């Protein structure tokens, strides 16, 4: 909607005649409008324009589980857990690291739950703790007071009786509320909580810090002592999206017993995970405490019309409208339900649908626990929340995943400070990532921004002018002789000028224009002045990414810039097999960078049977070495190094050959002379080799620096900026802003800020280079 991709459907539904920003049932000329629930009508509408029709069917997110595994563990599948406490008990009962699971890939036995780091699956936990992750704030125009409403609210009457439904709301994310912290702590408990099995009663016992320290715990008034090796950690398999952690596959194989996922259609779920759907059941997210409500999340998809489709003649547009109403029509869904019932699959159909469609006789086939859930949803005992439908939730979902939940679940997650991370991510959400920064805040910074911008702009132009002038200094001598025929040189230059102009500078200028616009891919883009730059300036994560970029450049320089020099010097000293080594070093160069990155990604497999982890295992045989399996790319501390290594490895060969060529240009007797003069190997290196290589080193350094500053290919392939933001370099951030978040204006402003920094730096380097060349000329 924001990008103007969609065509308003008011043509068929009817117009907002009273100007309250919504098309009421009374205003609508289309019959179907009244069948769309009010919330969904509101979601589809913006400023009186309707952009989509919701599917009649809705997706529900709850806790999926295996009834057979529950039974095996002595649990009653018809009486699923209703509170977090009960849930934890279930999870412990369902966890047995020693249990043999046929078809497993990695020996972890059976675990209680597959934890998925996706934001949408985490929200219901927050809500079941009583939290409201997204709220809307409406200001009463009369009193000027702010009122907070639920995101799903459809009635906006204040306690004072004012109706604020006509007021444009401002949405706010609450991902760092105490309830959200509690829900994240809950993730942490599921992943890292210590527990043990009491041998006498056969019951699992959760262990707190005190019990762990004492090695003793009280079970049913009876003291039980335990040894450290009896303590189990977590009830979770982490589903991080790497190989063999697909949650449905894990559930299907029985490696996990529960999973928070889409639960509506158990038949489909069963089919896709390869298990008998009769062995599957689900229950709502349990309440955090007794007395609170369990929660389900509902999602609805919309059908919409793209603007370019709507460019066609009216008759064709009408046909498309027909299709839209057809696919979203309740009748279509109902027909499918009927067919399921007639096929004898009524037990997989929602009880509500059975009742509505008159299949009362079949209701008893629906498992009792499900009946209870459906009834609860109907009565409100189970709370329903929609997946956030405002702002850039998709981005936020990813951010919560990358920057918080993944890091709790990861191998290294036990010590992770999720409270701070939640705070950070919430700040981002409310300052541009999910919801636009409030206008008032932008206004506040505008004067400062103007000054900063003018200063920066003048500096940039000055630098560019200085660079250009430094190239034209000796023009007089060059032009002579050609003065009479000024056309030919220009003609010869033309192809290059055109190519560079069209492919280099035109996009650059367009980008500059975009940076001052609120750019929309289709439709008109409004000029917004410096707003984008203010947003950037206030965006801590952008500056953090600049810092990360500098770090990235440093690591890359250290590895891919210095190692070839060392390699070349070693290569020039190797007594035999030089050609063999040279060939070996050069080989990676002929391999595609993509393949190299993906190969390394495979080798960085965080499981113990990953290539590098196997090497680590071998290293452990050495005396005095004790290293556990590493999680490589998923470890925030190690990720940057891991990302840089493949490129450094692949590039070292070719670069070392270049240095080798330079080294060969130093005659052997120069070293001998140095030896006679009293120099050892270190002196030879420092006083002869390095000075000879210096011009090459500097040129390479400039190249590496600039390329690295912009480069993000390997990061894109290996970590996508994660884990957390540990490899979020500016280039990656720009890409995400542009192509994930579709915020092209912000992306281009970022690119310009990065570019400006680079131009400044390049200027310094050129000055430096010129001095070097000057020195060479005098040689």
């Amino acid at each position, binding site marked *: 909607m924001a990008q103007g991709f969609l065509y308003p459907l008011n043509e068929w539904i009817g117009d907002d005649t009273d100007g309250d920003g919504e098309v009421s049932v009374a205003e609508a000329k289309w019959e179907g409008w009244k069948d769309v629930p009010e919330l969904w009508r509101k979601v589809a509408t913006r400023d009186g324009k309707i952009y989509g029709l919701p599917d009649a069917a809705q997706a529900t997110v709850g806790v999926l589980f295996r009834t057979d595994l529950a039974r095996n563990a002595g649990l009653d599948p018809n009486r699923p857990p209703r509170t977090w406490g009960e849930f934890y008990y279930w999870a412990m009962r369902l966890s047995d690291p020693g249990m043999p699971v046929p078809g497993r890939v990695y020996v972890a036995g059976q675990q209680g739950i597959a934890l998925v780091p996706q934001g949408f699956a985490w929200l219901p936990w927050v809500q079941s703790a009583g939290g409201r992750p997204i709220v809307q704030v409406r200001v009463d125009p009369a009193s000027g007071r702010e009122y907070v409403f639920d995101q799903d609210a459809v009635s906006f009457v204040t306690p004072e009786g004012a109706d604020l439904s006509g007021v444009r709301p401002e949405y706010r994310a609450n991902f760092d509320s105490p309830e959200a912290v509690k829900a994240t702590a809950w993730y942490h408990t599921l992943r890292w909580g210590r527990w043990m099995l009491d041998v006498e009663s056969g019951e699992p016992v959760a262990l707190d810090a005190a019990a762990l320290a004492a090695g003793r715990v009280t079970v049913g008034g009876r003291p039980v002592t335990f040894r450290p090796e009896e303590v189990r950690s977590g009830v979770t398999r982490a589903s991080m999206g790497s190989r063999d952690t697909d949650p449905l596959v894990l559930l299907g194989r029985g490696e996990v017993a529960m999973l928070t996922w889409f639960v509506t259609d158990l038949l489909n779920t069963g089919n896709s995970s390869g298990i008998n759907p009769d062995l599957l059941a689900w229950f709502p997210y349990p309440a955090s405490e007794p007395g609170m409500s369990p929660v389900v999340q509902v999602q609805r998809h919309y059908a919409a019309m793209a603007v370019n489709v709507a460019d066609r003649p009216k008759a064709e547009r009408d046909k498309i409208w027909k299709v839209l109403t057809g696919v979203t029509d309740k009748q279509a869904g109902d027909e499918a339900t009927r067919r399921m019932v007639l096929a004898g699959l009524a037990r997989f159909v929602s009880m509500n649908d059975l009742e509505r469609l008159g299949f009362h006789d079949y209701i008893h086939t629906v498992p009792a626990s499900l009946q209870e859930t459906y009834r609860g949803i109907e009565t409100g005992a189970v709370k329903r929340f929609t997946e956030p439908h405002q702002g850039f939730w998709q981005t936020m979902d990813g951010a919560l995943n990358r920057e918080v939940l993944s890091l709790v679940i990861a191998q290294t997650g036990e010590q992770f400070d999720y409270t701070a991370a939640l705070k950070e991510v919430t700040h981002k959400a409310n300052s541009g990532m999910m919801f636009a920064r409030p206008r008032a805040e932008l206004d506040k910074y505008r004067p400062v921004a103007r000054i900063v911008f003018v200063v920066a702009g003048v500096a940039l132009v000055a630098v560019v002018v200085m660079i250009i002038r430094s190239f034209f200094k000796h023009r007089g001598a060059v032009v002579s002789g050609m003065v009479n025929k000024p056309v030919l040189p220009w003609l010869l230059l033309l192809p290059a000028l055109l190519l560079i102009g069209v492919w280099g500078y035109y996009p650059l200028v367009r980008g500059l224009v975009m940076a001052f616009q609120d750019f929309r891919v289709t439709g008109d883009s409004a000029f917004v002045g410096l707003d984008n730059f203010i947003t950037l300036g206030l965006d801590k994560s952008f500056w953090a990414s600049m810092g990360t970029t500098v770090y990235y450049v440093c690591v890359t320089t250290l590895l891919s810039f210095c190692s070839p020099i060392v390699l070349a010097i070693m290569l020039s000293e190797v007594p035999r097999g030089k050609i063999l080594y040279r060939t070996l070093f050069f080989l990676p160069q002929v391999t595609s960078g993509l393949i190299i990155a993906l190969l390394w990604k495979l080798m960085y497999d965080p499981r113990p049977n990953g290539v590098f982890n196997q090497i680590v295992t071998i290293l452990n045989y050495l005396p005095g070495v004790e290293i556990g399996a590493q999680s490589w790319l998923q470890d925030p501390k190690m990720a940057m190094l891991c990302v840089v290594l493949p490129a450094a490895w692949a590039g070292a060969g070719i670069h070392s050959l270049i240095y080798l060529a330079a080294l060969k240009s130093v005659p052997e007797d*120069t070293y001998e002379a140095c030896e006679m003069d009293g120099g050892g190997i270190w002196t030879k290196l420092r006083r002869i080799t390095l000075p000879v290589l210096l011009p090459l080193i500097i040129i390479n350094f400039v190249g590496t620096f600039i390329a690295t500053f912009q480069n993000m290919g390997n990061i894109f392939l290996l970590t996508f900026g994660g884990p957390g933001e540990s490899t979020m370099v500016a280039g990656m951030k720009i890409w995400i802003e542009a192509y994930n978040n579709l915020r092209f204006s912000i992306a281009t402003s970022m690119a310009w800020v990065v570019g400006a920094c680079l131009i400044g730096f390049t200027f310094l380097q050129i000055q430096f280079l010129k001095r070097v060349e000057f020195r060479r000329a005098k040689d």
Partner: protein
Amino acid sequence: MANVTIENLTKIYPGEKGSPVKVVHGINLEIRDREFMVLVGPSGCGKSTTLRMIAGLEEISGGTVKIGGRMVNDVLPKDRDIAMVFQNYALYPHMTVYDNMAFGLKLRKIPGAEIKARVREASAMLGLDDYLDRKPKALSGGQRQRVAVGRAIVRKPAVFLFDEPLSNLDAKMRVSMRAEISKLHARLGATMIYVTHDQVEAMTMGSRICVMKDGHIMQVDEPLNLYNKPANMFVAGFIGSPPMNFFHGTIQESAGKLQFVEANQGESRISIVLDERLGTKAAPYLGRQIVFGIRPEDVRDAPTVSPSESARAIAVRVEVSEPMGAETFLYLGTGATSFIARVSPTTRLPPGQQIKVTLNLANAHLFDPASERIIG
């Protein structure tokens, strides 16, 4: 200052296919203190290898090198109290002339003032005062070599080693540098070991010359002794330009006198009646193979032939005449053999002209063809 003693010095390289290659065959050489010793020989004779073993740049495969009485086989080059001048100058390209010369001293932690004084002294000696701030690239070949020499001088080593230092210079520069190095030797009074393949350099510069061939020492002696009393055919042929003329033949007796008769058959073969000195030497070789050697300057053309000698004159044909200015070389042929005569510059003979020449037997030599050693 020091003497250098080489005993049974051997160098063996690992060969291409595993078979070791011996390039220096256990040579013995005593280089006296303050001596200018020239190692000369054709390329591949082992002279450079020998020098580099003295310098410590090559590992010694066998034997010993002593500098100033101290065995230095296992001493690092920098600790041997030597300095070396390389054929390609081996200057540090990124350093100025001053720094090039000062570098070794800096590495040896010599005080700054002393370095300055020594470099100034050397640069004055070598005429480099105006170039101290330049980089080697901005210097001519001769200047560069002077810097290389300067770098050696400032170190004040006991022994100077020169490895074909002049071979990269043009002919003129070579002649003047030759003289300069000689002067330097006189001035510094240091022991110098100088490797060259150029016998002129060897003759003009060396106090003594060591002629080498295939890893063996052929002869060690003062230049004129080498010239006048070559120990073998190799030295005789190598020292002197144009080289000594050799005639292969036999000793025969005719009319009570021994005479050398050239090996080739035919009318034009040379036969030389030997004088008393040569006769005694040749006596044991009667009827046997022998080599007769005579330097070009001892071949006299007709105008200088005295009437008494005319009986022994040899009829030859002038093939080429090379006027050198101070002298003229005549390439002469008998039809079967060719040889060279060094004659007066006033001699003008067109090619093809038949003349008669005589040989100054007082300076002629006889060699054993099998051992190539001189007879007598």
